[in-house]
């Protein structure tokens, strides 16, 4: 059963130094507010998993909290590079960043295996690519019926999954809709689940395209309106594309990034940038 919690308490209780954390949301419903709370609490030595690290992980990497990144596409969508990610990989600033790198199909299937209680998943992937040579979570398996060789990826079972959703009821049942990405799989694969929501309501009325995570697979729900900004929550907000474009300049320079971090995340502890 999920507890309805203050974001600060929920992050402090569920996310610990050294954890493997998956903050998912494919462009939509990205849990930025929770990530900023992780930065404020200085929870560090994290292994972060996410298909598209996006600006949210650029911020966590720049803040020096990330030891390893498990991912499949590390860019600022529609804008360009993730400069903090590149600086960490290329120059080890502010600390070296280990990588476990996959394709989207591989990452998605790693979560699928994790959610399904299997040690691996099978896909027709990575064929002819150099990627398997650089990851110990990619292997091959032969079909016992046809003999065909296929790719296998190891299950990904994060210590914590963090997602943002539109709504929860007072018992902690969570409802999300629109592009729901890989969030169900990430949540079901994780040992602990933290959900931030736009609002807590008395009753979850059915919504087309909606999906429900029952309260008994969720550990904590925190009401954080706008908690996906600069990403968006369908039905509540639109994507702040200007933020994504502005991030390019902010993140390109270490000093500019540090100033941003101080002013926008650390300097205003407890308050979220809207």
């Amino acid at each position, binding site marked *: 059963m999920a507890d309805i919690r203050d974001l600060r308490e929920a992050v402090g209780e569920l996310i610990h130094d050294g954890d493997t954390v998956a903050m998912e949301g*494919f*462009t*939509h419903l990205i849990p930025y507010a929770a990530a900023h709370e992780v930065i404020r609490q200085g929870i560090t030595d994290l292994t972060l998993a996410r*298909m*598209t690290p996006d600006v949210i992980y650029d911020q966590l990497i720049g803040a020096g909290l990330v030891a390893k990144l498990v*991912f*499949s*596409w*590390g*860019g600022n*969508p*529609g*804008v*360009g*590079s*993730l400069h903090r*990610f*590149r600086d960490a*990989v*290329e*120059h080890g600033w502010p600390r070296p960043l280990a990588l476990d*790198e*996959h*394709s*989207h*199909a591989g990452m*998605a*299937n790693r*979560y*699928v295996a994790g959610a399904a209680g299997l040690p691996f998943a099978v*896909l*027709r*992937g*990575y*064929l*002819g*690519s*150099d*990627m398997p040579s650089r990851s110990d979570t990619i292997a091959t398996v032969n079909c016992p019926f046809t003999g*065909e*060789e296929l790719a296998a990826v190891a299950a990904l079972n994060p210590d914590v999954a963090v997602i943002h959703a539109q709504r929860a009821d007072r018992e902690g049942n969570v409802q999300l809709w*629109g*592009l*729901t*990405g*890989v969030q*169900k*799989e990430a949540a079901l694969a994780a040992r602990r689940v933290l959900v931030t929501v736009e609002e807590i309501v008395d009753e979850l009325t059915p919504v087309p*395209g909606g999906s429900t995570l029952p309260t008994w697979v969720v550990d904590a729900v925190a009401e954080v309106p706008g908690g996906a900004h600069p990403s*968006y929550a*369908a039905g509540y907000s*639109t*994507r702040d*594309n200007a933020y*994504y*474009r502005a991030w390019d300049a902010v993140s390109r320079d270490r000093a500019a990034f540090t100033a941003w971090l101080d002013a926008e995340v650390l300097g205003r502890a407890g308050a979220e940038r809207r």
Partner: protein
Amino acid sequence: MSLPHAATGAAEATPDELMEVNAARALAGARTCFVGIGLPSTAANLARRTTQPGLVLIYESGAIGAKPTRLPLSIGDGELADTADAVVSVPEMFNYWLQGGRIDVGFLGAAQLDRFGNVNTTLIDRGSGRPAGRLPGAGGAPEIAASCGRVLLVVRHSPRHLVDRLDFVTTLGHGSGPDDRARLGLPGRGPVAVITDLGVLRPDPATAELVLAELHPGVTEERVRAATGWPLRAAAHVTTTAPPTAAELATLRDLKSRQGEAR
């Protein structure tokens, strides 16, 4: 400044516009297209408004049959889901729809591309003593290239992008020859065209090596060879890109003017 009538459109069109129009035209006969952000999205939306009105746009974020009114900045913009025929989860998209063999055409970009259409989007070797330059990585590309019926590669023509040897093979095109895909069990036909701002390369059926097949109006073979990192051969018949029609150009410019949220 005036040119013969047939080339008027081409004279007006920029090299990038010719590339975009060529990419849209390359969707002829396609029912479904896996759309990435940037030029592929421009080309697919242009095709849907001109030659392929029934084209089904599929975005890896989960939107099947999206009908955006303007070009989205990201593959997960809200309008994609709002206008889609169906919205599915990301695992379902990759497993049932892409790997399931339901998508006719996939577009791929490339930081580096070799003569067999193999692609690097992972890292750039800057030489000893310097750290490799980090690129975004694979995204959906390895499986798009594996499972789409055919692949269109889109890249600006320069020796930096069209290279003699990849620093890293992220995504297999034709490997090292015409039999490699079948040997590895890749279901799709792989790259059928490399569409650039100077023209179009296509694989030689006998060798799978990319050869010059089409030149934009006014571009010489020499210029293309100088912009290619391997000794580029030409097909037996090199054609000239037909200039954009007035409708193509107007639609393209309208689309891009209404991009609004574009980079």
